[in-house]
């Protein structure tokens, strides 16, 4: 094994032409992911998490413009790779689990057809072998009577089962990277935890790298090696999970972490910490810190600058304040 990261992204930028002008949906994202590592991307709705993951997979709508300084997967330049090369990576070495389990399976084909398709596309195996692998994985994701499920159609399964099937499908070729985009948001609360647990267990068992996109900081605290906090299209803070939870530097991250209800600390019926204010428009030129409109540490130069600050252990954040807190010297 080499030490180079499995996935390396520098300056990933996504622009969407709209009738009102260019929407700068994602601006200059940097991160690295090693084999077997879990990166959790957190951030509120619309911050660009799904777009980022689709950009990595090469599945963006054609009208969205993608640029990057670097975007490599195990040494392969994802920007220069041919469509054929990308196709060979997708489903085989990197796969994705989507936010919408109800609609992500093709209604016209059986579960078995859809599961085996992934394997048959990438590996030279017989149909019987592919079927056996599908059964094995359905059992792994906790589906009972796996063999009889193969001949069922998506509409015959519940949302939770469909997402399990999606997970099994993503694992068919034992990929090195799995991107799971809010895999449980659309599901019943009672099964959310089960599905996440399952995903993380399988990831450890198969030693895959995982990018888990989620709103749930409780989950992040439990599973993440690295955390990337996204706000309005920028990564405002990244670093090892332990460092970020111990010492959240960016005011937005601090706000998020204060939102986690802690038994005993919050009084019953007390309001959870929420961050007031609205997200800036990303249409047209975006300058300064995107969070300044909601930030209680705001100073005048936040309108024009949000420099990158480096803390020990690869912990980074973007803020005019060297430690994320306003001190009198800065405002002066």
């Amino acid at each position, binding site marked *: 094994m080499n030490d180079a990261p499995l996935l390396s992204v520098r300056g990933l930028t996504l622009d969407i032409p709209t009738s009102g002008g260019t929407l700068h949906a994602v601006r200059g994202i940097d991160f690295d992911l090693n084999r077997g590592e879990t990166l959790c991307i957190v951030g509120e709705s619309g911050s660009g998490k799904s777009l980022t993951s689709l950009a990595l*997979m090469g*599945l963006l709508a054609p009208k969205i413009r993608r640029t990057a300084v670097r975007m490599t997967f195990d040494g392969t330049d994802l920007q220069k790779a041919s*469509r054929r090369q990308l*196709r*060979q*990576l*997708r*489903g*085989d070495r990197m*796969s*994705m689990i*989507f936010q*919408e389990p109800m*609609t*992500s*399976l*093709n*209604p*016209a084909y*059986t579960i078995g057809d859809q599961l085996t*398709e*992934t394997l048959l*596309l*990438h590996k030279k195996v017989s149909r019987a072998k592919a079927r056996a692998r599908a059964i094995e994985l359905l059992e792994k994701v906790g589906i009972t009577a796996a063999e009889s499920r193969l001949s069922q*159609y998506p*509409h015959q399964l519940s949302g939770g089962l469909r997402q399990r099937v*999606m997970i099994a*499908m993503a694992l068919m070729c034992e990929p090195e990277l799995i991107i799971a985009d809010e895999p449980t948001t659309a599901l019943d609360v009672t099964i959310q935890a089960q599905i996440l647990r399952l995903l993380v267990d399988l990831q450890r068992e198969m030693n895959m790298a995982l990018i888990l996109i989620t709103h749930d900081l409780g989950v992040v605290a439990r599973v993440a090696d690295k955390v990337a906090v996204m706000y309005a299209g920028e990564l405002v803070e990244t670093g090892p999970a332990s460092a970020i939870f111990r010492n959240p530097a960016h005011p937005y991250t601090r706000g998020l972490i204060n939102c986690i209800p802690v038994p005993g600390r919050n009084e019953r019926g007390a309001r959870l910490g929420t961050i007031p204010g609205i997200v800036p428009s990303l249409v047209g030129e975006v300058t300064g810190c995107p969070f300044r409109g909601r930030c209680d540490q705001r100073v005048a130069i936040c309108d024009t600058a949000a420099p990158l600050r480096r803390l020990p252990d690869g912990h980074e954040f973007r803020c005019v304040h060297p430690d994320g807190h306003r001190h009198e010297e800065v405002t002066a």
Partner: protein
Amino acid sequence: MLRFILKRLGLALLVALTVSFISFSLLFLSGDPAIAIAGESANAEDVAAIRALYGFDRPMMVQYGDWLWHALQFDFGVSYYFRLPVADLIAERLSVTMTLGVCGIVFALLIAVPLGVIAAIRPNSLIDRIALFLSVAGQAMPSFWFGLILIVIFAIQLRILPASGADTWQHFIMPTIVLGYYAMPAIMRLTRAGMLEVLSADYIRTARAKGASEGRVLFKHALRNAIIPVVSLAAVQMGFMLGGSIVVESVFALHGAGYLAWESIGRNDLPTVQALILVFALFYIVFTFLADVLNAWLDPRMRSA
């Protein structure tokens, strides 16, 4: 799947029975059939004799049972006008109409489906615009006029195709184009709309995420779902073409069943009209049934319906 087919078959038979009763009762809705046969100027005794001869004096349900029993054996009585068995008459005319109908729908599908797919893959492209133009033109241009234009160009000016008759396969080229062109716009627009909708579906993204090639995504994953409503439409149009190709049949002097129906109505030839209505209705029923089965095969969700 088998249960679904049986259920639909039962339903189809029920509809067929209802239709047969309606087409039978037409005989009585259009006045006294005995007078129709004898002619307006016939005297009362002649009418009474005819009434007894054809059994019009029996209770209606008995007559219906009798008629249905014979119809089931392809005996629709004798044409008042031709004095020939209606069944033979229809069989001869129907072969022309069926050939025309099948050619027409195949032609329409062969043009409309690929055009609709391409238009959906490249919306607002040149091909999309051409397809839109063709479909608007197809909708706006009356069949008889389009038929006449083709006759003027290919039969009169270039002299490469026969203008009328049904003797060789060349005779069917122009009628097929006219009839197919009539059915094309709706099929094309439905294919395009279906493809556009399906291509933005989440499961298409899943197929791409698996590493499926663009062709596989389009044809295996998208078209299979987009074509479902097109199948129903094509079935209805096929039924329509078999019964309603009267205009095309008269322009090209193809003496098919549609033309026969039109003539027979004018001649008050009730057994023929009755039988034709039943046959056309049965075509509709058969095609809807086939479309249902095909749809259920394409879309598993329908099988439980």
